């Protein structure tokens, strides 16, 4: 066991996966010699050589396009997109190719690629270093989509993704890289060192893709969250005193509807959180599914607390971010409904 940051946990997962399986290759922009702008691949090139971990041209479409070719050959490419905001040039290769290769060839070819990308705001990154595009992946049949909220899961989900026979998108909330950020941006940073989920097993392990984790049990309202919003939710529950059950989805596709359903049927209330823009965000899907599965148990409307339908602003970042005040208000308001 070691206390790791999320960055260290991700680096460690790469390392162990490369060690046990020489089909694993890691590449991306600044990923090789330098070890990535967030250092998630630090030391890998030195350890495994330039043909297992290398710098790539700045061409996201080419990153994924070549990765698909490698995966079809039989390798296990792990590709880093420097920021999720820069995945759009690769979107065609992801949607039209990686996601559909198994289906369109009836399993003749497959595409076990892992695509990692830092996501979310909170670092004054403005509209091109802050986005949360998960809903653009959850709409695409054939992709799995996971979002870790802590070092333990970051390692286990990455290892599971590399083993997975299908393409997996990992959205890594960059604001969590160094600590369990709860939205109180004006308070000192809490490091992972002090957090139980920063305690990471040294050995190789996987975290099952498709299983949610209940981070806080509660009776009054179910909160569905992932990534950074898990920590915001926990803080908001504590601050408001609302006895919320906080579910960390971890995997958006496949979704652990069972865990969600049990919880909402128990609490009768549901609040859905994400940082992405509201309209057609993944929160809409969660709201729709909860409503379909638990209609007769709902005592209040399902509320979504999300980023606004605007580009992520630079100076007004904290007016955009759905922080503990907004989440707390939602918890209280949903409790007031009869």
């Amino acid at each position, binding site marked *: 066991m070691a206390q790791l940051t999320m960055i260290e946990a991700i680096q460690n997962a790469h390392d162990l996966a490369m060690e046990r399986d020489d089909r694993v290759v890691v590449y991306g922009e600044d990923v090789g010699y330098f070890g990535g702008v967030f250092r998630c691949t630090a030391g890998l090139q030195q350890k495994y050589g330039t043909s297992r971990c290398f710098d790539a041209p700045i061409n996201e479409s*080419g990153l994924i*396009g*070549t990765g698909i*070719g490698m995966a079809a050959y039989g390798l296990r490419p792990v590709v880093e997109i420097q920021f999720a905001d820069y995945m759009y040039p690769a979107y065609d290769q992801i949607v039209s190719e990686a996601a559909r290769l198994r289906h369109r060839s*009836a399993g003749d070819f497959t595409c076990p690629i892992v695509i990692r990308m830092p996501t979310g705001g909170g670092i004054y990154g403005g509209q091109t270093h802050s986005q949360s595009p998960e809903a653009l992946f959850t709409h695409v049949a054939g992709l799995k989509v996971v979002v870790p909220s802590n070092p333990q899961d970051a390692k286990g989900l990455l290892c599971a993704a590399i083993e997975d026979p299908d393409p997996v998108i990992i959205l890594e909330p960059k604001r969590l890289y160094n600590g369990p950020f709860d939205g109180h941006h004006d308070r000192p940073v809490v490091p992972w060192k002090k957090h139980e989920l920063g305690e990471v097993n040294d050995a190789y392990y996987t975290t099952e893709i*498709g299983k949610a984790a209940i981070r806080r049990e509660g009776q009054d309202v179910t909160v569905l969250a992932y990534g950074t919003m898990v920590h915001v939710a926990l803080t908001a529950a504590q601050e408001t005193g609302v006895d919320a059950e906080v579910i960390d989805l971890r995997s958006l596709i496949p979704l652990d509807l069972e865990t969600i359903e049990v919880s909402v049927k128990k609490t009768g209330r549901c609040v859905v959180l994400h940082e992405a823009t509201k309209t057609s965000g993944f929160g809409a899907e969660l709201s729709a599914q909860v409503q379909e599965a638990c209609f007769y148990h709902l005592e209040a409307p399902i509320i979504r607390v999300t980023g606004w339908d605007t580009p992520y602003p630079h100076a007004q970042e904290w007016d955009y971010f759905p922080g503990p005040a907004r989440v707390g208000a939602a918890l209280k308001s949903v409790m007031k409904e009869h």
Partner: protein
Amino acid sequence: MSNSVPLTLHVPEPGCRPGDTPDFSGFEVPVAGETRRPDPLTAPEDIRDLAFSIVRVLDDDGEAKGPWAGTFEKEALLDGLRHMMTLRTFDDRMLRAQRQGKTSFYMQHLGEEAVACAFRLALRDGDMHFPTYRQAGLLIAGGYPLTTMMNQIYSNAADPIKGRQMPIFYSAKDHGFFSLSGNLGTQFVQAVGWGMASAISGDTKIAAAWIGDGSTAETDFHSAMVFASTYKAPVILNIVNNQWAISTFQGIARGNATTFAARGHGFGIPAIRVDGNDYLAVHAVARWAAERARSGHGSTLIEHVTYRSGGHSTSDDPSAYRAKEEGHSWPLGDPIERLKAHLISIDAWSDDRHKQAEAEIQDEVRFAQKEAEANGTLISGPAPSPRDMFEDVYAEMPPHLRAQRQEAGF
């Protein structure tokens, strides 16, 4: 600078449209045998001239000429002729099947048969092609069963991809034929990745990427060039310039460049043009490029100069945008006629044997069709189960898909 002349938009136009008389006099046809054949390991900057010529082996009399000749045994050439004839016959019957409503769509190779058929024989089993929809010649020359191709075209119960894709979107891993995509260009860079993977693995296999003239404009073309150049990937990058992209002539994609092959120069990738209607030339150039790739010298860009004699697909009517006679004026002739003339000139073939071969191939294709139709066509007979639709989205079916399949009642 006193020039304040109003600017105007330059929009390239083809030499001829419906009603015009085709004129290929501006299209320079090098004499067969005249283009040099440098050592395949020559540095790219020393062979830039190859991008502005056209490698041709067969002359107008069917004689094989020059340094690119002689890569083939006679027996192999007879096979080659048969492959092209089979492809043409196959096209013809499938076009008709589509018109009879037995399937939804078809695309033919008329006039371009030499390109994929000759290329295939220069590569080895285990190498991987990333084809477009106009390289079924790779399958036929590689011995893939005609019946299986037809099963796919009919989306019938024996379709290896279970009716999921439109006709001709084959997938045949064991035959080195990557699953076809409807999205133009995407596979061009995937081939580079496959080649990189072979190099990463210390393997000896190489990849072949395929793209049409129109599709070179796609951004994935650039991605392929960049990655192939940087990592010296063992991949042959093939542009099939058949002069048209649906209704759009090649000048719209080529722009102000002299040739498509020249695109390679900006990447330090050797580029070469070949007479795509000359079976011998295509094969020789393919072998040359394969040797380069296998010896660790990286990629080669090949522009196959040919002509799409038919419509773009069964949904297309070319008489709306090009002169009907254009195909007949095409200066590089017909690939089957040219190889046939060569074989006759070397006494390996005759008109009679040709006719006989035609009849045999007709029978063979007709037989395959019967066999395939016994497995059903798109509109009648056995079909893949709708249940299948939910399979292979993932290796293991997740709960939401299981629920949907149940809801669908299949």
